[in-house]
């Protein structure tokens, strides 16, 4: 086999030959730029939060922009967690399937998605920057922000489910053209992700539309904190998967090809997504282990469901590891770790995704801690929790999206990255910075350091009396934050530098991966139809019935939430709103 000799350097992507996708490429670029602009603002504020935990209060110096730490934190959470991820995901989950299927997406719907999200995001930005809505990204009532905040959130969320009809239309057209064939993998994964998100959105949208919007507009006078909190987490947990699943799509659907190999198992990827759909919806109230008001039996059931939702992620770790091992061995790596060293580390897109995946070992393990009822009592609402999700959404999602940008900008604009070295530098510093930061946050949480608290504004003696015991971890938090600042700006140097000044070059094609087992597909950048019963596995055929999966998920979600909401609905509290910042 000629490929066995060691091959240094990045894998050369095939060149895009199909020049007919101009409107789609431009729309995708728009989504990418909008998303990353949100990250630029959100990530710039991040290190201020990190310094805060080490007792360094930078906010007085920023008085003209931010009145308080809590205002800055609201902007950080909303822009990074919602606006950045929604824009990139809603672009990606239409563009990739369109290219895979060779089907034109409905530009009107996809454009409406962008328009709605842009209006929502601008409304949120207005409400956050005028300090009328420093309610943090969880916006728990009875803290009361301005109508612009809640309406903006509503419109943003409504926009974010628009890719679903676009996907359904493309899939239906493809199925008509290829009767009896299995949906190609990337489309399948994208569709399951959007179905999951559309179901999940019901929680936050009903919270917003039935309660928070009319309340903030003065149409209703009081609000029930527990019902709204529960509805928030009905969406707030699955949103974790709306962050992770697009990254998994890139890992399963593209990364193995980018690394020079093949996807180890196509049916296993489908099963992972089906499990994520079913298990991510009913578990949201595990964020409420510390809340009074609902039965212990349901808390126990939530523990079991939460442990179950970890399973597809651990399977992903296995399949991804195996695909990378295959790639590394094809590139000539041998021995126990040689294959890992042989990966194309000089390709910033591969490096970003593999390093992001590595941080997920810590992120996933700490997630299991959070989900363990008894352990959660120790870490609930301490810095352990943001420590955990900075090595999930802050590394897995953010780094995978950064990695996507490194091939996608050349693909979409026909411009070469201005510097592969700076791109690699940004990825490694992000990896190192985020790891140090997250370890510091998790460690400090064990000393009871509360999350999202402006501890640096406390008198010096009080800060030391309370949190001096956590001096080592809080130092790590600050160091990690500063390294992340360097990473952020070197990334955006490459991102905007390439958009503006990149040299013209051939466009690389979308690097769709081919599965190791099963028929040859994706060789030309467009999926080759695989008929059911002809090479497609039994599992893949069974999982084609996405509406059955949706039905199952809906039933499980209703079954989980009726008993949780029941006592709250029978004991409604009429709380007035409070503006306390």
């Amino acid at each position, binding site marked *: 086999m000629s490929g066995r000799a060691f091959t240094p350097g990045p894998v050369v992507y095939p060149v895009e030959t199909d020049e007919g996708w101009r409107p789609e490429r431009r729309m995708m670029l728009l989504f990418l730029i909008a998303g990353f602009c949100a990250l630029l603002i959100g990530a710039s504020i991040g290190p201020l939060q990190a310094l805060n935990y080490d007792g360094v209060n930078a906010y007085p110096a920023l008085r003209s922009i931010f009145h308080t730490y809590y205002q800055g934190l609201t902007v950080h959470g909303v822009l990074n967690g919602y606006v950045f991820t929604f824009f990139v995901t809603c672009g990606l989950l239409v563009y990739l399937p369109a290219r895979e299927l060779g089907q034109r997406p409905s530009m009107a719907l996809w454009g409406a998605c962008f328009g709605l999200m842009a209006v929502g995001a601008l409304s949120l930005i207005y409400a956050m920057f005028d300090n009328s809505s420093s309610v943090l990204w969880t916006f728990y009532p009875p*803290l009361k922000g301005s109508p612009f905040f809640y309406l903006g959130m509503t419109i943003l969320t409504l926009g974010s489910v628009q890719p679903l009809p676009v996907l359904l239309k493309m899939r239906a057209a493809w199925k008509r053209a290829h009767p009896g064939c299995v949906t190609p993998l990337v489309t399948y994964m994208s569709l399951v992700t959007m179905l999951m998100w559309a179901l999940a959105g019901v929680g936050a949208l009903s919270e917003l539309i039935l309660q928070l919007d009319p309340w903030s507009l003065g149409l209703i006078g009081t609000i029930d904190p527990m019902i709204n909190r529960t509805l928030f987490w009905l969406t707030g947990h699955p949103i974790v998967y709306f962050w992770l699943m697009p990254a998994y799509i890139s890992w399963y659907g593209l990364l193995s090809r980018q690394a020079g190999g093949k996807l180890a198992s196509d049916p296993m990827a489908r099963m992972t997504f089906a499990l994520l759909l079913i298990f991510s919806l009913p578990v949201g109230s595990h964020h409420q282990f510390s809340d009074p008001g609902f039965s212990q039996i349901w808390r126990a059931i939530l523990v079991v469901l939460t442990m179950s939702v970890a399973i597809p992620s651990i399977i992903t770790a296995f399949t991804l590891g195996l695909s990378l091992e295959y790639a590394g061995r094809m590139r000539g790596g041998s021995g126990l770790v040689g294959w890992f060293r042989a990966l194309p580390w000089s390709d910033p897109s591969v490096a970003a995704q593999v390093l992001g995946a590595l941080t997920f070992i810590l992120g996933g393990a700490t997630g299991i801690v959070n989900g363990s009822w*008894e352990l959660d009592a120790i870490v609930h609402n301490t810095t352990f929790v943001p420590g955990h999700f900075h090595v999930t959404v802050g590394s897995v999602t953010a780094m995978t999206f950064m990695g996507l940008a490194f091939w996608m900008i050349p693909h979409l604009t026909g411009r070469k990255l201005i510097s592969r070295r700076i791109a690699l530098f940004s990825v490694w510093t992000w990896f190192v910075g985020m790891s140090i930061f997250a370890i510091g946050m998790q460690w400090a949480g064990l000393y009871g350091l509360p999350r999202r608290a402006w501890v640096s504004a406390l008198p010096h003696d009080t800060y030391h009396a309370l949190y001096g015991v956590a001096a080592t971890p809080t130092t790590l938090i600050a160091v990690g934050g500063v390294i992340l600042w360097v990473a952020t700006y070197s990334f955006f140097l490459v991102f905007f530098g390439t958009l503006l000044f990149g040299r013209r070059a051939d466009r690389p094609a979308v690097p769709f991966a081919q599965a190791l087992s099963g028929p040859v597909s994706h060789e030309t950048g467009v999926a080759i139809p695989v008929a059911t019963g002809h090479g497609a596995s039994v599992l893949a055929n069974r999982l084609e019935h996405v509406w059955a999966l949706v039905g199952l998920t809906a039933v499980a979600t209703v079954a989980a939430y009726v008993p949780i909401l029941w006592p709250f609905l029978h004991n409604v509290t009429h709380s007035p709103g409070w503006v306390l910042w």
Partner: protein
Amino acid sequence: MTPFDEAFHASAERHERAFIVCVIVMMALLTVATMFYVVHDFGLVTTTQSFHSDPTAAEREVAAADTGRVVKTGPNSYAVHITGKAWRWTPGVIHVPEGAEVTFYVTSSDVLHGFEIQGTPVNLTAVPGVVGTVKYTFHRTGVFRIICNEYCGMMHHAMIGQVIVDARAAE
């Protein structure tokens, strides 16, 4: 598929099955372990004392029971009623004896607060209109801080109370 691909694939499928079994066993063991400790330390589990439609009623219920001190409820058990209100805990300083079972009744009269006692697993959301409870036994004397860990506005970080665990008087 090349022979290498075929060998790799066969080995991959075998390991995949074994891996999935290991994962399921591991998660099942973790579930059993966490449930064991929940049952073992059941007092730490957040339970509900009462619901009120008027949030100030929950505050009054707690305030009526609050004498500013702990209430002795049994030979070695005490009750403490606490209200969170932006940005202080009432009562702000609580004296409890070492080694006694203390039941905390916690509510809020405005927004959500978080009732965390630093250095212990006591962690309960203070919700307007709902009185929640946890039980805990302090086995060490000294000052424990009550830290608000649910964002409640401008001075959230300064919402700190104290539990002072006194040594048991020689009997």
